[in-house]
């Protein structure tokens, strides 16, 4: 099953290179739907399985596996794959972009399934190359080149700390297999050093505030699909790394660095929310707001309770649905009018009713309105932080207030008011665009009203959250 999952995006890569242009769109779409159904069935049969297709010299076996945590990330990835394929349906260089996209998705699925730290690092880095191409080649302005470099170098510099840590682990433990490493332990000093090295690379990806500079740039300059992938999945790689590596491998260091995490996360939440209020570029608004959301996830992840952990996962998934939807909305406006400056848009409710409804809904979902998926996650996170430390909960709940402010402000500027005098012709959503947005809307509402759908495999969130929980009880004793 997993090998099929790994092969299908690669197959779409190859078909893009080989097939004649006539059938390329339909074939790519069909192949992109394949991993989604596979991962859905993986979720339904709900198995913790791993296979060993190849052996790797000096590194031990190269193992793949899916558990209850990574299956959600894979599901999100494979859901966004057909959506991005649909988004570029009418693009003139469909084949090239679809090739790059399939490459990105195959690397992502390999990343989420690998159980070896070496390959974890390898795929974490490999993602940069196709994303560099995507931002640099298909971005809108000349500034895209600087943005592509920034994106590449920030992540690369961060991840070299991870490389040092990786080599250190390989040197001391003689293996990089995660399942073996979970059962071994490090000395406290080692843990403190290694945790920080991994943190340095993951915090660029999350991103936390001093290292967030690449994110708005990359988002603004990337094409719509680039933003969708960035916000939908690439921001989650850091969170996934924390879940996979930092929490279970270095529990003591996690507790040791707790004040650092909380301080940085709260500063990032408040700073990014305040910055969002002053932006006039539509994409930058959403980019900065996603910084706030991801740092909120960080708080939930490090609250050391099952609610907080589940809440973090929930926000990851809900943000993975909502922010791509918002980026798609902005991309639609950009496709029609070729500007992202807020001041040019006003009163679109009159001429684009479907778009306005959609935008209204996604803005509400972005601010965590009850009934949407994000509300569930934010509620869980806040309640778990409250039981951990009420003061931090108070500070972090300011994010709810601020996100309401900027979301409603953006909505108000774009949708309401008198019709803008700068734009002349208006087209509402086409069927393709409407169905993409409606799919996301449906999923957000579905999980918002029936969060039990998401929580039913929670019994097997076991290993990692248990390890994290046991570490906190140990230190309390």
């Amino acid at each position, binding site marked *: 099953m997993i090998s099929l999952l790994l092969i299908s995006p690669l197959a779409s890569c190859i078909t893009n290179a080989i097939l004649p242009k006539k059938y390329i769109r339909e074939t790519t779409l069909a192949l992109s739907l394949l991993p989604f159904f596979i991962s859905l069935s993986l979720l339904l049969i709900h198995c913790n399985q791993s296979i060993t297709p190849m052996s790797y010299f000096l590194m031990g076996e190269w193992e793949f596996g899916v558990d209850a945590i990574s299956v959600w990330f894979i599901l999100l990835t494979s859901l966004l794959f057909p959506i991005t394929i649909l988004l570029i349906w009418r693009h003139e260089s469909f084949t090239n972009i679809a090739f790059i996209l399939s490459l990105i998705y195959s690397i992502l699925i390999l990343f989420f399934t690998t159980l070896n730290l070496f390959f974890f690092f390898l795929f974490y880095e490999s993602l940069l190359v196709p994303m560099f191409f995507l931002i640099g080649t298909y971005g809108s302005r000349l500034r895209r080149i600087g943005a592509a470099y920034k994106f590449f170098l920030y992540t690369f510099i961060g991840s070299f700390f991870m490389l*040092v840590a990786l080599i250190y682990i390989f040197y001391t433990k003689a293996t990089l297999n995660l399942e073996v490493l979970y059962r071994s332990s490090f000395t406290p000093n080692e843990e403190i050093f290694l945790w920080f090295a991994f943190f340095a690379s993951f915090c660029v990806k999350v991103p936390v505030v001093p290292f967030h500079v690449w994110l708005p740039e990359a988002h603004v300059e990337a094409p719509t699909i680039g933003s969708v992938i960035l916000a939908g999945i690439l921001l989650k790689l850091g969170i996934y790394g924390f879940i996979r590596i930092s929490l279970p491998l270095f529990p003591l260091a996690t507790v040791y660095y707790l004040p650092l995490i909380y301080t940085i996360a709260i500063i990032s939440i408040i700073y990014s929310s305040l910055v969002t209020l002053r932006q006039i570029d539509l994409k930058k608004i959403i980019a900065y707001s996603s910084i706030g959301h991801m740092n909120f996830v960080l708080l939930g992840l490090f609250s050391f309770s099952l609610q907080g952990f589940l809440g973090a996962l929930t926000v990851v998934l809900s943000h993975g649905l909502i922010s791509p939807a918002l980026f798609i909305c902005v991309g639609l406006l950009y496709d029609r009018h070729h500007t992202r400056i807020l001041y040019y848009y006003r009163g679109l409710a009159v001429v684009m009713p479907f778009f306005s409804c959609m935008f209204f809904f996604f803005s509400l979902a972005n601010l965590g309105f009850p009934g949407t998926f994000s509300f569930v996650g934010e509620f869980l996170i806040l309640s778990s932080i409250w039981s951990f430390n009420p003061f931090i909960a108070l500070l972090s709940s300011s994010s709810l207030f601020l996100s309401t402010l900027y979301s409603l402000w953006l909505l108000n500027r774009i949708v309401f008011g008198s019709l803008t005098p700068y734009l002349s012709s208006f087209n509402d959503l086409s069927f393709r665009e409407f169905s993409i947005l409606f799919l996301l809307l449906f999923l957000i509402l579905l999980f918002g009203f029936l969060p039990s759908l998401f929580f039913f495999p929670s019994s097997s969130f076991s290993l990692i959250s248990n390890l994290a929980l046991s570490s906190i009880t140990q230190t309390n004793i």
Partner: protein
Amino acid sequence: MFLHSLTLSFFTICVFSIFPQILSTNIIFALFVFSIALSFSLLLFSSSLSVSFFPFSSLSSLSSNSFEFFVFDISSYYICFFLFIFILFYFSYLPSVISSNYSAILLIFLYFFGIIFLLLSNDFLVFYISLEFVALTSYLLAILHQNPFTIEASLKYFIYSFLSGAIFLLGVSIVYFHTSSISFVTTFSFISSPESSPFIYLGFLLIFFTLFFKLSIVPFHFWAPDLYEGIIYPLTALFSLFPKFIFYPVIIKFSLLLSDSFPTTFSGVFTLLGFLSLLLGTFSAYNQFFLKRLLAYSTISNSGLLLILLGTFNFSPIALIIFFIYFLTYLLASHGIFNFLIHFNLTKFNSRLPFVASSYFFMSMLFAVCLLSYAGIPPFVGFVGKFFILFWLISSGYILLAIFVILYSLISIVYYLKFLHFMLFTPPSSLPSSLTSSQDLTTPNYPSSWSIYIISSALLIWTFNPSFLFLISSNIAYSFF
């Protein structure tokens, strides 16, 4: 036997190349490859069956009266790899060189034989003669295609190279004064004996400096960028690839022979010079506009990295395996890079790059694979080599050095990405119209495009299944012990 077949093939080439009208170059080359293959199959049968330890096993040492020839027990894998690269090189670059000047073929084969004799020498005098032989042929090769830059470059190379030869002779004479022998085995074993004077170290240091000059390690690197820029492109590739093939094994051989005194005296020098060339190569390549200069400086920095590994390798076979993993992938990747650049005649970061990339998209993607592997960016096998080098440095305690290596490779990534930026980030529609007529763009010939296919697929596949690479490099590494 081996030597005889070698000389036989050498004379065959000479005779045929005097009469170019009779036979085409490909037939000469086929004869050449056949004779070389014959000689190496003899070598294989004689050497690889017996487990032997250099230097005391003379496999097929042919002693004449005054000189001592010695089949340097380098692995047949290494020779095969060398031949492979040579054949790729020959078929993909040389037609353009030879078509304009027919004596190039003779010079290139003479260069090749110089290399073989260098690898076979076991004696400082033979070593010096073949060193100068290589230098002379490469000097003649460099001035074959004359333009103002070429004359300056090759003259500079000539002067520097003969100066370094003089330094080598000085070193040898110091060694000879103290040991009264010019044989490698005798002199190197003499150094560990108690009556050896400190001056003998100076002699060996001078000998090592000559080798560093050939490898363009930092204080002796001034000729390299000028020479690379001045001469025609295929010869740039020749001069940047082939000296590495000869002189790294020689350095490894010498340092293994000096193993008693090496750690205390020479390893610091090696590490320092390697570090300096890494530093200077990386920073000088950073802002280059001309691709040849950029490649020259990146060659310097890569040589520095390899030299750092040799300075810290401490006679461990594992370190040598790591060395050859990096070495082989580096040579393959740089061959791929040169192959692409030569065939589209790309010399600057200008609008020709995006034009080539839009006309030959698939080829330029494969070029990007070679380039990213060269830069050590993860999905390609250059990263595996770099990972193991860092692993070796950290595990043997050179943590600060490892951090510097990481920092420099981070900086170097910027200028490798610049290639991709120039190639792919400009849409073909915005190019000037004078370029879009493809009059001066020739389709690459079959050997060169196939060599890019082979190399880039190897660079990609070896990351995920590197057993073949590890097999080759461990065989080569163990052949030195």
